[in-house]
Each structure stands twice: as structure tokens, then as C-alpha cells.
């Protein structure tokens, strides 16, 4: 993979060509957060445009919620700056930042009704008394909760609570909306419905939003761009296609989408191409590595062709016994018998492979060398 | 955090620190005074001595009072636990009208002036011709302990997951047995706490007991107040220190078996 600077490759700077980072709606510069000796946020940089919907995706403990809270002003940062709509808000108290938050547990006020919850922000900001009932009513209509205006919070279902939480945050027209795993408490079917609803709601309002999630499908479905985080750093910040086809690091490769990955050692390198020796035979890929380096060679499953042993194709090829054939409705996954922590999986659309291949059979997997991604092994 | 929030946090810590010192001061003072060599309560003591503890052995009627109090506490607590369990179970599980009223009623003696209850019981027993001090004391102490038991058990039963009992019953256990063998063990911290508070309430009770004691049956608090009036010397402090040690022991026991935080927080 070729990149002029690491930052560009990771997509952290310059969301659209030629736009200087500072004119973005939200600019995060060199944010560091330390708890005693533990660095939770490690020099983070990010720029988001107005109206963009962005996800922070990563495993638990990667710092995504901490970053969200730092942007909201609920957690102090150790160093760095945050600018929203051109205004420096790093040292500004949370209640003056005009950043809306939808919490994972919704954090609705239990002693207030639905309507009172929504009115809370309006009252706190000193909105004219006469206006409040209309704005609350409009907000209730927006999330289709008009009938439940006077209901107590505790009598609502999970989905209803979520809608109130969103309405409450949006009614005060914040500059930015932050959502911390807003769908995690809902069951699958409801989740999908709410995702669609929320996305169109945000689009209608032109609201800039940042989601925190650990579910890559959710991130892929909702966002213009995704920041994949790991251990306090942003590994890559790009649109879903780029993340999938051109992952910047091995972590992104593994976290976003499925992939075949095998470990090996570089035998020779020239002109941006490397030869790798693996337990399954030699492979070729793109990358800059010194001979002898331990690497991981990877490729996306849908790019692999599967044929019966003996038939040949062009590019990289390995022949291995088939371990499993898994039908997933619209596609089939074929798993090869891999060693150690390697994963060998090919994806074929349709259900034909079920009839064609059986576990135990020896198969030949081929794919273009140019599609082979190479990353350093371990400690990414 | 804003400056105001920071200030509020500092103030709350300062107040909490003061409160801890405030609450523990009498305890520490008593412990210190009980080891003094002088017959007056001066601090710091001129010299350390355990003579006041030794003097307790000769204290007239102390042993009898202690035994009586322990006796009353144990038995009344046990009765209160049984009565409390059945009542709390009925209130938390039943659907009959007036449950809330019964719950409030059973806890209300806590908020009634003990002295008044003592007076009322004295006149009540006398009009019925019941004169045995021990018997009347026992009956009265159940009235003292039962509300403490009810308060703890009502909360615990209210948050108990009754599907555990349903599971036991589908496995063949009759209801009563299910309660005894599933619910009681599961709620053992609550029972322990309830029993502990009830026991202490009985041991410590003065206002009700003072009216029902007679020359031969004096509970420990009554006896101690008597000592204070007759001969206020540090031997009282020694008795108090003994009680403090007992309390510390009970707390340590509680922290080993159930966990201190859990125990106090129910």
C-alpha cells in the first residue's frame, strides 16, 4: 500500500481534497487524555464537516466513549484542542458548548414526563416561555410521540425512551450531536428500524453527528466516514468503502469486514512488491518491507476464486483441504483448514457451492496478487 | 468540571471528613477514658490503667443486668424475625387491600416516642393484672424489635426475585419449604442485618424498659443509668468500652460473612 504520509493514508486530515482542516465544523487537534499512568486518548486528530455523520468504531476500552465525552465536555482532556464551528471549546464548560448527547442508557429524567424532559433544555437555555410548548410539540411530532407527551418515563419501552432522548437532544438545535451506542439496548429488529429513522432525521436537519459503536455493521450502515479506534489511537478515518478495500493497518483489516489472513515471512522485496513465504506456499503482495520481516498477508473473501484441486488460475494460489462450507442465504462462505491464528475464508455469492464442495475436499484458492494486502505481524 | 462543581466537591469531602470525626469522637473518647487511672474523666489520662475493667467484676448487679439484656435481645429478636418474615412475605407477595397500610403500621413503632409506648404498656399490663417483669419486658421488646426487622425485610422482600420460588415449586417443593430453603438463604444478608439491628435496638432500649423493670429485673441500660446517677466514675466508660468491642466484633463478623458494605446497604 502506497501513501504519501501516514496521516493522509489514515484519512485523518483533509476530508475533501483541498479543504484546510481548520474550516471544518469540528476540529480535534492532538487530544491527549491520561488517567494517572494510563493514556486513554493518544494524540488524536480528526476533522469533521458540517452535516457529516461519523462513527467511532472500536473494541471496548479503545477510548471511543472517552473521546465522545471529551467532545461533550463531560470529561476533561490532558492536552489538545477542540474547535466547534470555529469556536475554541476545549476549556468551555459542558453546559455552554451546545453539544447534544444521547446516552447509552438514555439518561431521561425520571421525575419528569416526556414533554417535560424535552422542554428541559429549552428552559435551561432561557428560551422564551411562549415558544416552549410549540417547540416541544414539534419535537414530539418529529419522533411520533405526540400521544405520549404526558407519560412518565418509566412507563415507556426501550424504543420509545430512545426517541425521547433523541428529541430532547435535538430540540435545542445543537451544533453537534453525539450518540453513545444509542441502539445497544434494543433488539435487532427494532434496532434496524430506529437506525433508518434516525439517519433520515439527522439528514433532514443537516445535523452533524458522531456515533460511538462497537458494531461494524451499524457503523457501515449509518456513517459517511468511520474512525476505527484502537487503544486510544485512530487507526484510520475514512469512508466505508475505503476502509474495506484499503485498510491502513492490520487492525482495521480485522475489525472491518471479514478477510483471509495468513502469517508469513518476507523472502524478497522490490519495487513495492514483496514475496512472502507462508505455511501454504509462496504469496505475492504489495508493500514495503525488508526481507526477513514477519508479516500478515490478507485478502477480502469475495476476491478469492475457488476451484477443485488441480485447476489453476492466475495470481496467488494456495491449495488446502476445505474445513467448512457455511450457507448465509445470499452468499456462501468456504473455510479452509488454516494453522495457528490464520484464517482462510472465501466468499461466493449464491448457494451453488453447497452442492459443489464438501468439507475435507482439497480445493485451490486463487486471487490477484494486487489485491493482496500486507501488514506487519503483531503489535499493530 | 466547572469551578462551582469543584467547590461543591471539596465542600462535600470536607463535611464528610468532619462527620466521620464527629461520629467517632464519642467512641474514641469513651475508649480512652476507660483506660484512665484517675477517678475523674480527664483527658488525656494521667496514667493508663485497666483497673476500671477489673472493678466491673465487683459491680453490683452488672452481670445480672447484662444477662437479662442478652436474654431479652436474643429471644425477642428471634420472635421478631419470625413474625417479621411472615408479615413481610404477606405484604410483598399478597394482593389484598391495605397492604401498604399494614407495612406503614408495622414500621411505625420506630417513630413513636419510646417513653409513651413504655407508659402505655405499663398501664396496659397493670390493668390486665400481668405483673411479671420478665414476661412484660419480653413482650415489650418484641414491640421494640419488630419494626426494625420489618423495615429491613420489607425492602429486601420487595426486591427479591420471586421466580426463584416458582422454580423451586415446579421442581416439587411445597411453598413453605421453598421459602425456607430458597428464599431465606438467598436473603441471608437481609436477615442478618435485620437481626443485628433488632438485637442492638433491644440491648440499647431504655424508654420502654424503664417502666417495666422492677427491683430484681433490670436491663443493662437501666442499670447503667443508675450507676451514672449513683457513682459516676470511669467504670461506666469501661462497660461502654466492652459494648464497643462487642459491636466491633459483630461488625467484623458481618464483614467476613456478608461483606460490610453489603450488610449496611442491605
Amino acid at each position: 500500500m502506497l501513501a504519501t504520509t501516514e496521516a493522509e493514508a489514515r484519512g485523518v486530515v483533509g476530508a475533501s481534497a483541498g479543504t484546510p482542516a481548520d474550516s471544518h465544523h469540528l476540529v480535534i487537534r492532538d487530544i491527549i487524555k491520561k488517567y494517572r499512568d494510563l493514556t486513554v486518548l493518544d494524540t488524536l486528530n480528526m476533522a469533521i464537516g458540517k452535516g457529516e455523520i461519523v462513527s467511532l468504531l472500536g473494541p471496548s476500552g479503545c477510548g471511543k466513549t472517552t473521546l465522545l465525552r471529551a467532545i461533550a465536555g463531560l470529561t476533561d482532556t490532558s492536552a489538545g484542542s477542540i474547535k466547534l464551528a470555529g469556536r475554541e471549546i476545549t476549556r468551555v464548560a459542558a453546559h455552554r458548548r451546545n453539544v447534544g448527547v444521547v446516552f447509552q442508557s438514555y439518561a431521561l429524567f425520571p421525575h419528569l414526563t416526556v414533554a417535560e424532559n424535552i422542554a428541559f433544555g429549552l428552559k435551561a437555555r432561557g428560551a422564551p416561555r411562549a415558544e416552549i410548548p410549540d417547540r416541544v410539540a414539534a419535537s414530539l411530532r418529529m419522533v411520533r410521540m405526540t400521544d405520549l407527551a404526558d407519560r412518565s418515563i418509566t412507563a415507556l419501552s426501550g424504543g420509545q425512551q430512545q426517541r425521547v432522548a433523541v428529541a430532547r437532544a435535538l430540540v435545542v438545535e445543537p451544533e453537534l450531536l453525539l450518540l453513545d451506542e444509542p441502539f445497544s439496548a434494543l433488539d435487532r429488529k427494532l434496532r434496524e428500524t430506529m437506525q433508518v429513522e434516525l439517519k433520515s432525521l439527522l439528514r433532514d436537519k443537516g445535523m452533524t453527528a458522531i456515533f460511538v459503536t462497537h458494531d461494524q455493521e451499524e457503523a457501515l450502515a449509518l456513517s459517511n466516514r468511520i474512525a476505527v479506534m484502537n487503544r486510544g489511537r485512530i487507526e484510520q478515518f475514512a469512508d466505508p468503502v475505503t476502509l474495506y478495500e484499503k485498510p491502513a493497518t492490520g487492525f482495521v483489516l480485522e475489525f472491518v469486514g471479514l478477510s483471509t489472513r495468513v502469517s508469513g515471512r518476507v523472502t524478497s522485496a522490490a519495487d513495492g512488491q514483496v514475496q512472502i513465504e507462508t505455511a501454504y506456499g509462496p504469496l505475492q503482495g504489495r508493500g514495503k518491507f525488508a526481507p526477513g520481516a514477519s508479516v500478515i498477508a490478507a485478502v477480502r473473501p469475495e476476491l478469492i476464486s475457488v476451484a477443485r484441486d488441480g485447476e489453476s488460475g492466475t495470481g496467488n494460489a494456495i491449495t488446502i483441504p476445505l474445513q467448512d462450507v457455511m450457507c448465509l442465504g445470499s452468499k456462501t462462505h468456504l473455510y479452509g483448514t488454516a494453522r495457528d491464528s490464520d484464517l482462510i475464508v472465501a466468499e461466493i455469492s449464491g448457494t451453488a457451492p453447497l452442492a459443489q464442495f464438501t468439507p475435507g475436499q482439497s480445493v485451490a484458492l486463487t486471487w490477484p496478487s494486487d489485491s493482496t494486502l500486507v501488514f506487519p505481524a503483531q503489535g499493530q | 468540571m466547572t469551578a462551582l462543581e469543584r467547590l461543591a466537591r471539596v465542600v462535600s469531602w470536607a463535611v464528610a471528613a468532619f462527620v466521620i470525626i464527629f461520629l467517632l469522637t464519642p467512641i474514641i473518647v469513651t475508649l480512652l477514658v476507660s483506660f484512665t487511672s484517675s477517678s475523674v474523666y480527664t483527658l488525656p489520662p494521667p496514667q493508663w490503667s485497666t483497673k476500671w475493667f477489673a472493678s466491673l467484676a465487683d459491680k453490683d448487679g452488672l452481670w445480672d443486668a447484662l444477662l437479662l439484656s442478652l436474654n431479652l435481645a436474643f429471644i425477642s429478636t428471634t420472635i421478631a424475625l419470625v413474625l417479621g418474615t411472615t408479615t413481610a412475605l404477606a405484604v410483598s407477595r399478597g394482593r389484598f387491600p391495605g397492604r401498604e397500610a399494614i407495612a406503614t403500621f408495622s414500621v411505625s413503632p420506630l417513630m413513636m416516642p419510646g417513653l409513651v409506648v413504655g407508659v402505655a404498656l405499663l398501664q396496659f399490663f397493670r390493668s390486665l393484672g400481668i405483673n411479671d417483669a420478665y414476661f412484660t419486658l419480653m413482650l415489650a421488646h418484641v414491640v421494640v424489635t419488630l419494626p426494625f426487622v420489618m423495615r429491613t425485610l420489607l425492602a429486601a422482600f420487595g426486591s427479591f426475585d420471586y421466580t426463584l420460588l416458582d422454580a423451586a415449586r415446579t421442581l416439587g417443593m411445597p411453598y413453605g419449604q421453598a421459602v425456607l430453603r430458597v428464599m431465606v438463604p438467598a436473603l441471608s444478608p437481609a436477615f442478618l442485618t435485620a437481626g443485628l439491628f433488632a438485637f442492638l435496638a433491644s440491648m440499647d432500649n431504655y424508654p420502654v424498659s424503664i417502666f417495666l423493670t422492677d427491683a430484681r429485673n433490670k436491663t443493662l441500660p437501666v442499670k447503667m443509668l443508675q450507676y451514672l446517677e449513683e457513682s459516676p466514675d470511669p467504670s461506666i466508660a469501661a462497660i461502654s468500652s466492652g459494648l464497643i468491642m462487642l459491636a466491633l466484633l459483630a461488625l467484623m463478623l458481618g464483614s467476613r460473612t456478608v461483606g460490610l458494605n453489603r450488610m449496611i446497604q442491605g
Partner: protein
Amino acid sequence: MSAEAITASVSQLAPVAKERDRFALLALPGLLYLGILFALPLLILLVKSLINAEGDLSLAGYAAFFSDPFNLSVFWRTLRVALLTTLLSLVLAYPTAFAMVRAGGWILTLMLVAMVLPLSVGVIVKAFSWSIVLRSNGIVNQALMGLGLVDEPVRLLFTETALVFGAANIFLPFMVLPIYAVVRQLDPNLSGAAATLGSGPLRTFLTVTLPLTLPGIIAGVAFVFSLAVSMYVIPSLIVGERHQNLAMMIARAFLFLRNEQLGSVIAVVLLAIATAVVFSSALLLRLVERRQR
């Protein structure tokens, strides 16, 4: 459908008519016991105080009691001391409860022990130790003189201030624990949510935190006030006969003056105060909790 909704509907299916009666029966022993040995004697006391020497119903006893200015002063003093004690306890307990929730590990254990150990030690021991602390040669005076705030020992014992502090000291755990129990259950994200909606710290406290902790405050205040209004041992040891309260008058009437009529009247007055506290606090709690249901 949420988990709670399902559980609620299932549990409504559970008790059948026969089971309903069975549970009512379970409540009977406890109810009967308290009914006969608590409610009944109090009722008899009340009735007796309303019957004069001739056997007629009369409020003469009460009239006589309230017409005596000394009695009135004792009455007001009792209420005043109880109110001050409750206020002081509340002011100290409220911040402490929040500190406890934020504390962890050994600090929390220390605080819990500080709450519970004094409870287990007994009123007499505590009141007694306070009287030691407040003496002319006690540590408070020693500290005051040591700090140079006073030149000679201040008379602390036998003052109403000492009584309020001593009583607050003894009743403080009963104010802290109910408030602590409520604060513990507060969603920590609520104040954050209020802030992101534009509510500054003071506003958040007044509109979110305070209303939500109100049940704990009401429970604590009711309990401490009723304890403080009827305390006997503590004032006996700290202020003595000089600043009698109603409870001390009752004891005196029965144990020394042998005037049972007077004693009964005062007892009923005290009982009325306590009952009023119980009812009003229960009502307030119901009101507050209905809002949060």
C-alpha cells in the same frame, strides 16, 4: 414489549383467589401482635387521658396542661430542639451522602463503620461520652483554649446548643443512610445529560438532583425529627432538669411525681406530634414518588 412489562403482566396472573387469602392470613400474626401490644395500649392511654376523675369525657387535663406557661415553654422547647437537631443533621448528612457515593474501597468502609458503630454502641454510652467531651476539662474546651479562641473554659454542658449537637451526633446516621440509599440509585449520567442540555451546575442541582433525592430527605427528616422530639436519655445526660423536654416531663410525672393523669396527658401530646410526623411524611413520600412513577 419490555422485560418489565412482561414480568408485570405475568405476576398479575400468579395469585389466584385462594392464594390471595393465604397471604392475608400470613400477615395476621404480626398484625395481631402489634395491634394488641402496641396500638391497643396507646389507644387506651389516649382514652384514659380524656376521662377525668368523675368518669366523664373531658379535655380538662389538656386544658390544664396548655394553660400553664411553664408547660407551654417545655412544649415549644421540645419542638424547637427537635427542629434544630433535624436541620443540623440534614445539613451535615446531605453532602456526606454524596461523598459516600463517590468514595470507594476503604474510604467507604470507614464511612459506613463510622455510621454504624455508634449505632451499635447505644444511646447511653454515646450521650455519656458527649458529656465527657463537653466538660470544662473535656477535649472540646481543651481544643478551644489550645487554639486560643477562648481564655477560660466555656460552659458547654447544660446548654441547648450542646444538646442539639449531641443529639445530631447520635441521630446523624439515621439521616445519612436513607439519603445515601437514594443517592446511590441516581443515574450518574443525569447530571451530564442536564449539562449537555445547557443546564449549569446550580440549575441542575435544583431541578434534577434535589427533586430526585427528595424521598431520602423526607424519610431521613421524618425519622430524625420523631427521634429528636421524643428523646429522653440524651437531654437527661447533657442538659439535665434545666432544659426539660416533654419526654423528661413524662418520666418525671410517672416516676417521681406519681401523677399519672398528668403523665398520660403529656404522653398523648407527644404521641400526637409523632403521629402527625408519620402521617405527613408518608403523605409527602406518596406525593413525591407518584411523580416519579
